C-alpha cells in the first residue's frame, strides 16, 4: 500500500497515528523478526505468558461477557454458545487462566498460548507448531481469533465445538503430551485458586470437561472484526483504498475467491466452512501414494482408535478431511480458512508451506497443484501482477484495528520476502499457456 494514497483518501487522527506507526516500521533498520525482538520469549519462541497477558489486557475491551458483543444479533450470537456453557465472567476468567497455564502440558512448557500467541495473531506464525520436547506437529496452527464463529474446529473439522477442541491438544503426544484428561486434572488440582474458580464457574470440582468448557468460553470472547474492510462492507466508502477496493472486485469476480471464501456482512469470516482440495497437500512428494494407501486402509474399515492413531502419527494426516469422513471426495481437503486477520497469521495453508499472501495468490493463480482429487472449482486465474497486488492489499485490509501495527509490519515484511522470491509463481499455468494435468498426462514429472 502506498502511504501517500492512503493519506489522500483517508482522514483523521487515527490514520495519522497509523502513518506514524508505518513510518517507524519503514525507517526501522531491520531484518525479519527485529520488530519483535524486544518481546520476552518463552521456551518455544512465543512471548512469555506474563507479556501476553499484559498485551491481552490492552486488546480486550472491558465488557460484560454475558451480553451479546456489539454488532451481533443476540439470537445469532446465542446460536454460537453451547447450552451447557453459557458465557459468565467466572467461566471466561477461569478459561483465561487455563489458556495461559503451561501446567496443562506434561513438561510444563506449553500452554494454549504457546501456539496461539496473543502477540502473533493468536497463532504461532510458524509453518507447523512445536510442542513438548521441541516436537513438531504436522499442521499449521490456525488462529483463535473469531474461531467462535466456525462450524467445526481443526483444519479437518474433526471437532464440533471449541469446548471439545480445547481439550484435544492437552492429550496430544506431540502438543501438550498428557496421557489422558485425568493427568491434566491432576496437574492443577492442588491449586487452591483453581479449586475455587471451578466451583464459581461450574459449581463442581476441577474436571477435564470443564477445563475444555472454560477455555472455550474464554476463546469465545476473542471476537476481532473491526477491520477497515468490514467498515467498508457496512457502508463506509472511504474505509479502504482504491487499490483495496479493486482487490475486492477481483475477489468477487476474476479471482473467484468468493466461491469458497463467502464474505458478507452476515457472514464476515470469509469461509464457507467446507473442505476443499486446492492441491497444497499434493505438493508432498508421496501424496498420491499416501492417498491410495489411505483409501485402501479405510476401505478395510478401521476402528475409531486406529483412525485417530493414523491421523495423528502418520503421514496420512496429509489426507485431511478424508481421515474424518472416509469420503474419496475429501482426500487432501482442509477447511477454507478464515480471511479476517489473515495478514497477521502467516505462514499460510494447512502445512504453513506458503510464506506470504503473494505466494497464496500465486498458488491459486496457477490453478493449484494438479492432483487426482483437486477441487473442480480450482482453475487458472490469469491474474496480472497489478491484480495480485490489489488482492493482497485487499487481504491486508481485513485485519482488526487493534492489530494495525502487526499488520503493517507483516505487510512490509511479506512484501520484502515476495520481492526476493515468489516460488509458486507460474505464469505459463496462470495464463493457460500450459494446462493443469497436461504434463502429468504426458508423464512429465514436475521439477521440484
Amino acid at each position: 500500500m502506498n502511504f501517500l494514497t492512503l493519506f489522500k483518501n483517508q482522514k483523521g487522527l487515527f490514520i495519522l497515528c497509523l502513518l506514524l506507526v508505518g513510518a517507524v516500521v519503514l525507517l526501522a533498520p531491520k531484518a525479519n523478526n527485529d520488530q519483535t525482538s524486544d518481546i520476552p520469549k518463552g521456551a518455544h519462541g512465543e512471548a512469555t505468558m506474563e507479556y501476553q497477558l499484559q498485551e491481552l489486557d490492552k486488546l480486550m475491551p472491558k465488557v460484560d461477557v454475558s451480553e451479546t458483543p456489539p454488532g451481533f444479533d443476540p439470537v445469532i450470537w446465542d446460536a454460537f454458545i453451547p447450552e451447557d456453557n453459557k458465557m459468565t465472567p467466572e467461566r471466561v476468567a477461569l478459561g483465561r487462566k487455563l489458556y495461559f497455564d503451561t501446567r496443562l502440558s506434561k513438561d510444563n512448557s506449553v500452554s494454549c498460548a504457546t501456539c496461539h500467541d496473543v502477540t502473533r495473531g493468536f497463532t504461532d506464525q510458524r509453518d507447523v507448531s512445536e510442542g513438548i520436547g521441541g516436537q513438531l506437529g504436522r499442521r499449521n496452527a490456525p488462529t483463535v481469533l473469531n474461531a467462535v464463529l466456525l462450524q467445526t474446529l481443526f483444519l479437518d473439522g474433526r471437532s464440533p465445538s471449541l469446548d471439545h477442541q480445547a481439550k484435544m491438544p492437552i492429550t496430544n503426544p506431540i502438543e501438550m503430551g498428557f496421557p489422558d484428561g485425568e493427568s491434566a486434572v491432576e496437574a492443577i488440582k492442588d491449586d487452591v485458586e483453581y479449586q475455587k474458580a471451578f466451583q464459581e464457574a461450574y459449581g463442581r470440582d476441577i474436571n477435564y470437561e470443564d477445563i475444555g468448557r472454560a477455555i472455550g468460553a474464554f476463546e469465545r470472547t476473542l471476537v476481532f472484526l473491526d477491520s477497515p474492510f468490514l467498515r467498508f462492507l457496512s457502508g463506509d466508502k472511504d474505509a479502504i483504498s482504491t487499490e483495496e477496493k479493486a482487490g475486492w472486485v477481483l475477489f468477487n469476480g476474476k479471482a473467484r475467491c468468493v466461491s469458497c471464501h463467502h464474505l458478507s456482512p452476515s457472514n464476515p469470516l470469509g469461509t464457507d466452512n467446507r473442505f476443499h482440495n486446492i492441491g497444497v497437500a499434493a505438493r508432498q512428494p508421496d501424496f498420491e501414494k499416501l492417498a491410495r494407501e489411505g483409501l485402501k486402509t479405510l476401505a478395510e474399515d478401521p476402528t475409531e482408535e486406529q483412525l485417530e492413531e493414523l491421523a495423528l502419527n502418520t503421514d496420512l494426516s496429509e489426507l485431511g478431511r478424508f481421515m474424518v469422513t472416509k469420503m474419496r471426495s475429501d482426500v487432501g481437503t482442509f477447511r477454507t480458512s478464515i480471511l479476517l486477520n489473515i495478514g497477521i497469521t502467516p505462514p499460510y495453508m494447512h502445512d504453513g508451506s506458503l510464506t506470504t499472501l503473494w505466494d497464496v495468490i500465486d498458488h491459486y493463480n496457477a490453478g493449484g497443484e494438479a492432483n487426482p482429487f483437486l477441487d473442480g472449482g480450482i482453475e487458472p486465474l490469469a491474474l496480472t501482477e497489478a491484480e495480485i497486488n490489489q488482492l493482497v492489499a485487499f487481504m491486508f485490509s481485513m485485519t482488526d484495528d487493534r492489530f494495525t501495527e502487526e499488520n503493517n509490519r507483516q505487510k512490509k515484511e511479506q512484501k520484502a520476502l515476495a520481492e526476493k522470491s515468489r516460488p509458486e509463481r507460474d505464469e505459463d499455468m496462470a495464463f493457460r499457456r500450459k494446462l493443469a494435468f497436461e504434463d502429468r498426462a504426458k508423464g512429465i514429472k514436475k521439477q521440484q
Partner: protein
Amino acid sequence: MRKAKHKSVETRHMEERRELYESLKNIDRRSFLKVSAVALGTAMASGLAWPHSFQPASVLSPSTSSQGAESFRFAYISDSHLYKKDLNDRFVRALLRSVDDVNSMDPQPDFVFYGGDLAQLGQVEELELGAQILKDLKAPLKIMVGEHDWYLDMGEKWQELFGEPIQSWDHKGFHFVILNSVIEKDFWTERGMKPMERMMTVAGLDNGMQSSFTVGSEQREWLKNDLSKYSNDTPLIVFSHSPLYKLYKFWNFWTDDAEEVQAILKRFKSVVVIHGHTHQLLTNRIGNIHFHGLLSTAWPWPYAPEGMPELTIEMSRPDPFNPNDGCGNGEVITHTDGLIDKVYSLWNRNPITISSTYTSSWGKRDRPPMPNRPSY
C-alpha cells in the same frame, strides 16, 4: 422408482416384468432357477402375460463359466465434448485429468475404451486436440464415435484420425463389437442446411427437427454376419454411443431400431452393452442384455423426466459449486461368466460399483449403497 407422468417403453417393460415376478412369488428361488421350459409353458398357458422383450432364458439358467472367458479389466473415458483450448479449457483439463487417472492405474488396464463425443461440434481442431491428448494414454485405445464427432463432416475427420467407426475383435475369450448407433435420417438436404447448421441441430436437445438415432439396416446386417461365427455362449460386449434401448426420445437417449438390434443379440447367453451419451449412472437389463452407461468428463446430465430403468442407482444432484461433481471416468472388470462389474469413478465422490451379481440377480443382490442426497 420415481413416479413419472409418462412411461417409456422400457419402464413399462420393467413393470410387466415385476408383475411376472410377483405372480411367481410362490416358487422359491432355487426351484425357480430350475423351472423347465415345460413348466414355463404351463405358467404362460395359465394366463400370465409374458413381457415382449423379457428373455427368461438367462434368468432361468444358472450362470456357468463360458468357455475361455477370462477376468480382466479395461478403463473407460467418455463424452469429453472438447472445444478449442482457447474457447473453453475446462473440458480439455477434464480429459487430461482422465488420461492422468487412467495412466496412474496400477496395473494398467488391458485397453482404454473411449465412448464417443470427443468433440463438441465436430471441428477439426476439436478432434485433433482430442486425438493428441488420447495419444498420451499408456494402454491401447479403442474408440467409438458419437454424434458430436460426426455431423459436421459426416465423420470424415474422425475416420481420418481414428479409422473405422464400426469394428469387432476378440480379447481373452470375449467378443467385442463397436457400433455406430448415432445414424440419423437425412433431415438436412431437404431443408438446405449447411454442415454447421446440421451439426448444431444434432447437438441440440428437445428439437423436433432431427430424427432419432439408429443403428440402421446395413449395420444390423454387418452385426448379424459378424456374430454368425460365434456360438451362443460366447461372452459378448457391445459398445454403442446411445443406449441400445428406448429411454427418452427428446434427448435421443434412444435408439430407434433398438428392438431389432436386441433381437440379433437375443440368442447369446449373456450380452453386455456399454453406452456413452447419457453422462450419468445408468443401469438397465432387458432379458439377457445388461446395459451400462458411462460417465462424462465434461458435465453430468440430469435424469430424464419419464422415469428410469428399475436397476438404475440414480446419482444425487451434483454440487453446483464443484464443476467436477458428477463427472469422472471408470473401469470395467469382466467375469468368466461373461458379465461385468461396472465401476463409476466419480471425481468428487466415492466410486460406485454396479456388480455383475447385481444385474444378474435383477437387483436382488449386491445393491450398491444409495447416495445420501436425492436424485434430480
